[in-house]
């Protein structure tokens, strides 16, 4: 896919984008709601290039690290530091968040316990099979891209009767979060980039309310620089034509109908509930929890952990919530760059590699684009 990173093609697209941005009555502000988009924009240096073309990119609540309440991070830490002979398997993303109990990465495990970084939940299942006398807890954090895989793993554990395996769930749904922030009415964006791989699971339909009820354009975007720019261009075209819709700009990897098999699995194992998102409060039907049938694989009751939905307390003055909603830019928080710094983060948006505040902080120190 090197062609999607070709600098000439990128420059050409940026030129198109610049022209279309100038046609709009107001400078466009586009929100992406996926940590991987935030990272891709940063990693390739696209945000300043888009800013030069007249488009401001804003990060919404798409960072699983940022929106998982401190209480759930603390529950994960307590498992590995207080229970003996336990393996806490986790994706690397979740390990750096500082809580009042430190972070998973710096936590000192209880005797016989350990933290295991995994790429796939299957690795956690394999360990549970290999060591029947060990408790293996998988810290199941993610959005719809990852939830089917976690559902599959839990269902497999059930089928094999692996009583030593369980999942600490931190499962979040994007469309309800979009709905909540749009209904709060504070947001001022011109359109959205929808997460391409979440969409591979849920399809295009769940975003249609954004165009239909709020008149905002949007495009489902892939993650190569070229994919992102194609989607941005589509959003601007829709805005100029006054025809908001959900454009499919990632058709090679997702179908309009999503992945029904994956969705069926999610629905079989999990049910929606009103979850508390860090910084955003409780959002109706925005989280997933285990259905009764699979409750035996839920680490929360199994280990007597705090119930999901306990949001934990953020530090006074922390405005990650407003940043996640796109209401303010990181600079709008008084703590940003003063007390809240990459080396001493006070809120999740400064901790996470794809947190809006951390990335803004790094950008703020970068000079103009390429010589």
């Amino acid at each position, binding site marked *: 896919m090197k062609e*999607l990173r070709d600098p000439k093609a990128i420059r050409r697209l940026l030129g198109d984008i610049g022209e279309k941005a100038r046609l709009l009555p107001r400078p466009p502000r586009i929100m992406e709601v996926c*940590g*991987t988009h935030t990272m891709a924009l940063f990693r390739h240096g696209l945000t300043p290039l888009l800013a030069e073309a007249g488009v401001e990119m804003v990060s919404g609540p798409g*960072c699983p690290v940022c929106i998982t309440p401190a209480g759930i991070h603390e529950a994960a830490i307590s498992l590995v530091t207080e229970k003996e002979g336990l393996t806490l398997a986790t994706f690397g993303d979740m390990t750096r968040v500082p809580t009042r109990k430190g972070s998973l990465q710096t936590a000192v495990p209880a005797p016989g316990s350990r933290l295991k970084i995994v790429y796939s939940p*299957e690795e956690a299942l394999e360990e549970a099979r290999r060591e029947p006398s060990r408790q293996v807890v998988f810290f199941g954090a993610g959005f719809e891209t990852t939830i089917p895989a976690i559902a*599959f793993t839990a269902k497999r554990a059930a089928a094999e009767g692996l009583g030593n395996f369980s999942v600490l769930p931190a499962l979040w749904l994007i469309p309800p979060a979009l709905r909540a922030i749009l209904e709060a009415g504070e947001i001022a964006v011109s359109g959205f980039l929808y997460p391409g*791989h979440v969409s591979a699971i849920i399809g295009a339909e769940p975003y249609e309310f954004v165009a239909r009820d709020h008149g905002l354009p949007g495009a489902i975007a892939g993650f190569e620089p*070229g994919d992102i720019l194609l989607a941005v261009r589509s959003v601007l075209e829709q805005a100029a034509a006054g025809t908001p819709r959900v454009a499919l700009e990632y058709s*090679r990897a997702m179908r309009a109908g999503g992945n029904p098999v994956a969705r069926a699995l999610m629905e079989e194992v999990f049910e929606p509930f009103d979850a508390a998102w860090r910084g955003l409060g409780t959002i109706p039907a925005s989280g997933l929890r285990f259905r009764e049938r699979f409750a035996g694989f839920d680490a929360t009751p199994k280990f007597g952990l705090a119930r999901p939905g306990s949001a934990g307390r953020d530090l006074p003055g922390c405005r990650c919530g407003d940043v996640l909603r796109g209401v303010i830019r990181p600079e709008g928080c008084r703590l940003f760059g003063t007390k809240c710094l990459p080396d001493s983060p006070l809120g999740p948006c400064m901790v996470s590699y794809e947190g809006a505040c951390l990335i803004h902080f790094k950008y703020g120190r970068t000079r103009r684009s390429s010589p």
Partner: protein
Amino acid sequence: MCLAVPAKITRLEDSGQGTVDYMGSEVKANFSLVPQARLGDWVIIHAGFAISLLDEGEARETLQLFKEMGAASRR
């Protein structure tokens, strides 16, 4: 939350387990979410699971589009 890559299926067992080739590296993969996948198909791999099939026609079109944009002279 969307880190995923396109890869080609090199082994596919009835159990739904198998492997893909990604840029010359072999990766264990679970194909249970894409039961319609066949050996040799391209899939999108996330956290060790294939979540979607790659539409090779669409992929070719996209690559072609970018090849043309890359070759076009600057305005």
